[in-house]
């Protein structure tokens, strides 16, 4: 077999990297790969989420299934999720899908004794594995100075009045977003094409200052700016361009079609990845690449189908006695 390869060589440049938000540029690859990675980040990166709830006592105002639904939606730190097995594939447990290799157990036991309303939050969930806990949103916000750090609250599950009690046992399992949205690690994942803007300087010179200002303001987002010093129209933020064609329509209305040419570069993408906190945003992207590789591997043809391959090609045609 000849060793030809039609591979592409993508490049990455990270613009901004925080724990839960990642903004980066992906170049020299196809839109299908960018979209596949986006789809996998939303629907196929595995995480942990509460899947089975056994309620012992519930005298709160919310009914059992309502509580179970809310518990399922709580994001859980899922760094272990890639190595864990899915419950249905697990052979170590005795059939009920609850062993230590495929699940994590949580306990919640709260009773309201005081006169004040008691908030039951995700902090009250006690895990059997100290590394697997619900995501701590207030802790991180405190670092950014947004919240008073003494007010660590966690995600609210239910509020209890005096005398109401809630006691339950919950099992968290590995799953993917395709099965149920509670397992999706992504808050939003978006990508946009990078715009390529060319201003026709010669045509631009034929406009008066007021006309230039009018044209710059016709764009709903601030893409262009009139530089007061040089009185030239400059591109200030090409990515703010939302591919509405307002500036093009305005140029035509002013009698100057072709004043600016805006194309989207077909192989340049700007990704914004936001995570719920279950998995770090950069880790989510790496997991997505791994998952895409394993999907492609699963779809490869096996050897016994390849052996039937030699029926094809010129030899095959000759043997079958015909064809072009």
């Amino acid at each position, binding site marked *: 077999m000849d060793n030809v*390869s039609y591979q592409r060589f993508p490049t*990455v440049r990270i613009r901004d990297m925080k724990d839960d938000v990642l903004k980066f540029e992906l170049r020299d690859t196809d839109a*299908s790969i960018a979209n596949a990675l986006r789809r996998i980040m939303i629907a196929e990166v595995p995480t942990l989420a509460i899947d089975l709830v056994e309620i012992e006592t519930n005298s709160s105002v919310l009914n059992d299934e309502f509580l179970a639904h809310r518990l399922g939606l709580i994001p859980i730190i899922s760094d272990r999720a890639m190595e864990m097995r899915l419950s249905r594939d697990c052979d170590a447990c005795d059939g009920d899908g609850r062993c230590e290799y495929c699940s994590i157990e949580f306990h919640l036991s709260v009773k309201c004794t005081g006169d004040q309303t008691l908030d039951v939050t995700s902090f009250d969930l006690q895990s059997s594995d100290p590394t697997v806990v619900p995501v701590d949103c207030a802790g991180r916000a405190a670092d950014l100075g947004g919240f008073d750090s003494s007010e660590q609250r966690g995600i609210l599950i239910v509020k209890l009045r005096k005398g109401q009690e809630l006691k339950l046992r919950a099992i968290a399992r590995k799953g993917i977003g395709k099965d149920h949205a509670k397992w999706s690690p992504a808050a939003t994942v978006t990508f946009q094409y990078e715009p390529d803007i060319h201003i026709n300087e010669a045509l631009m010179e034929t406009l008066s200052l007021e006309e230039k200002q009018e044209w710059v303001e016709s764009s709903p987002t601030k893409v262009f700016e009139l530089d007061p010093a040089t009185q030239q129209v400059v591109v200030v933020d090409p990515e703010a361009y939302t591919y509405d064609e307002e500036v093009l329509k305005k140029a035509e209305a002013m009698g100057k079609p072709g004043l600016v040419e805006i194309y989207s570069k077909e192989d340049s993408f700007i990704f914004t990845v936001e995570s719920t906190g279950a998995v770090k945003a950069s880790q989510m992207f790496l997991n997505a690449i791994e998952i895409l590789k394993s999907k492609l591997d699963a779809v490869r*043809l096996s050897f016994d*189908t390849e052996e039937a391959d030699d029926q094809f090609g010129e030899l095959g045609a000759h043997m079958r006695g015909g064809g072009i």
Partner: protein
Amino acid sequence: MNAPDRYERFVVPEGMKKVAYERDMKVMNAATFTVEREDHTIGNVIRMQLHRDPSVLFAGYKLPHPLQYRLVIKIQTTSQSSPMQAYNLAITDLTKELDHLKAAFEQETSQKQAEYY
């Protein structure tokens, strides 16, 4: 009431092959691949990679029905190659591209971490 279970979207049942192919009776060097329990995520990726191969005359994919979770890829090649070869080459190239992407990303993140500290 008639909705299929959610896990049907990605769990291949016992006895069903993940990928199967059928040679096309009427056209030379053409085959149709049926992939079970997959969707546009890999269908589009494989199709676009097949288009880059000059020995591939025709490459297309479809999901015949939105409630039946299978993918059909149709490939026709010149007599220089065969649909199976083209398919496997496309997957190999894609795997190499993803390895390259992963290495590039990991390098970028470690650089960013180093800058941060």
